């Protein structure tokens, strides 16, 4: 089963009057349950592809399919609703809301989904925080946490609403290698336990190793696409 699909996707940015081609004809099928890494040097188009798959951006040409729909011609508001219902994000710089506690940060996407029952939300928040190993730190503010702990909160926040697809743009780039390994192990565990599809970009070989599928980009094109060692086997 396919969760998302790129069909001959191009994305060209205009910088002044100069055309900057960031993605040049990429076709990719992402199977349900994949733990997929997009690798490549800086500027190769990783972020652009994740943004397209994350309905944060639309292609210059080609088609982006997520679930049953395409992002073609959708308004900003519809795209926002679409992300709200189907997608989770993990960012390189954690991007937690500093004035909210760990619990409130993870509650945020549930509120956006309009789940009115506070008990229900709280149960889900506490459950996922236990899973990522932060059950004891729920009332801390992000600034009172280490980088690794913050990224765990971000993973919990992405997963709490049970999305089809979690997109993580260089999730370990701001972490030391040991913590990076722990975060990768956590995401892998979630992938195996819940079957959530993960796509993450990286240029760290240690991180790539864990992927069930490794797509290498070069100059906005797919340079190679191979099964990796880790991850849940795609169905």
């Amino acid at each position, binding site marked *: 089963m396919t969760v998302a699909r790129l069909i001959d996707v191009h994305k060209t940015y205009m910088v002044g009057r100069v055309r900057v081609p960031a993605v040049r004809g990429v076709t990719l099928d992402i199977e349900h349950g994949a733990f997929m890494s997009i690798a490549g040097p800086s500027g190769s188009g990783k972020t652009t592809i994740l943004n397209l798959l994350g309905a944060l951006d639309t292609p210059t040409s080609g088609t982006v399919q997520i679930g049953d729909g395409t992002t073609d011609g959708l308004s900003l508001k519809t795209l926002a609703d679409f992300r*709200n*219902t189907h997608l989770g994000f993990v960012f390189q710089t954690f*991007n937690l809301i500093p004035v909210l506690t760990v619990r*409130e940060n993870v509650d945020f996407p549930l*509120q956006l989904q309009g789940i009115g029952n506070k008990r229900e939300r709280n149960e889900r928040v506490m459950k996922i925080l236990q899973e990522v190993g932060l059950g004891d730190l729920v009332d801390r503010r992000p600034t009172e946490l280490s980088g690794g702990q913050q990224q765990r909160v971000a993973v919990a926040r992405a997963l709490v609403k049970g999305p089809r697809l979690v997109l993580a743009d260089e999730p370990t780039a701001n972490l030391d290698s040991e913590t990076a390994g722990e975060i990768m192990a956590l995401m892998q565990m979630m992938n195996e336990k819940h079957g959530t599809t993960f796509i993450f970009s990286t240029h760290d070989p240690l991180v790539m190793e864990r992927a069930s599928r490794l797509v290498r980009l070069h100059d906005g094109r797919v340079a190679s696409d191979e099964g990796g060692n880790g991850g849940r086997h795609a169905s």
Partner: protein
Amino acid sequence: MLAESIPGRLRPLTILQLGWRNLRRNRRRTWITATTVALAVLLVQVAVSLLIGIEQQSFDNLINYQTAHAKLYAEGYFANRDELPLDYTLTGLDELQATIRGVRGVAATTPRLSFSAQVSNGVDLYACIGVGIQVTGSDHDVFRIPQAVVDGEYLKSGEDGLLMGTGLAELFGVDTGDWVTVLTKTQAGAYEALDLPIVGLVGTGNPLIDRNSFLVPLEIAQYMLGLEGAATELAIRFSPTARDDETIAEITRAVQDLRQLDVKGWREMEEDFMALVRVKRTGQGVFLLIFIVLAVVGITNTILMASFERTREIGMMMAMGLRGSGIRELFLTEGALTGLLGGALGSLVAVAITAYFATVGLDLTAMYGDMDIGYPVKDTIYPAVNIAVLVASWLLTGVLAALASFYPAARASRHIPVEALRHV
């Protein structure tokens, strides 16, 4: 998929919570902005309550010492009243008074005879306004002259004597007990001079009376002017519950068959002063508006800066599915809360100040000295704390602050998530 879902929105309580906590992110900036708002609110509340106090006081002063609520004139007098003519007098006063007393809303009425006179202390000679008042029976039912006697005593019926304005007495260098000569011209054109003792001084705070006028018993005025049984006006006081317009209309109806008469309300008599009041209000309004604008600009600027600093956070919230309208709500709330915080602060200080002066009173002479502030007031003002006005203006501050945040909030809501996320 999601029953009764409101996708893309935060719960109102969360919006409030976020707004409140975000205020503390840059405490210094929040305090500076809130203080600006507080100052504007404080200034507006104190200035407005002071202005209302002074206006009320000066209206009371005019009514109590000069205009009464209304006056009845012979036709032709009103248009020429500045010259104090003796050609348009009222006679048959008892009958007229009886008619007017019968009108609903009228509490009391008294005849007065105003005339131009020259007064001399033997050295200097000044032109003044003389007013003949009915000492027994009625003048003090309409006017409050007895309360304004600051030295000596009120006039006694049948006794010669005059009450002199404090300013006029100072000008002459005379005091209670001294004698002055009053020079008048009768309606027929003959000069008449009379020596009268000063029985007392009146200080009303109304410059027209204090600096230009003296009061004598009506009979003396009539005698000096050769106008036995006549008056230039019939002054009327309304009962406290009477509506001014209605009562004036009733009086007009009651007298219309009698003679050619004019009924004038105090506002109409004091048109120039009312115009001055409006000018002063406008002036104050403009002055206060400057502070309000400063506060508004402060809030706009603060929210703009906050939204710049949080560009990436905005992008992240949008990536999670918060709609632009949700971002707008967050910043509008933050602006409104800043306004409410400053408004509360300013109102508290304003209440403290008002409450203080409500008990000790605000002595205007201490504030302005003997300077003519353009309002006929002298008494101490007791401003009142009005909770309803206070709460209303506090809420209004919140609304105004939200409006001030509208532009930066709308700007923040139009961010494109990818670009906002790229922001460093």
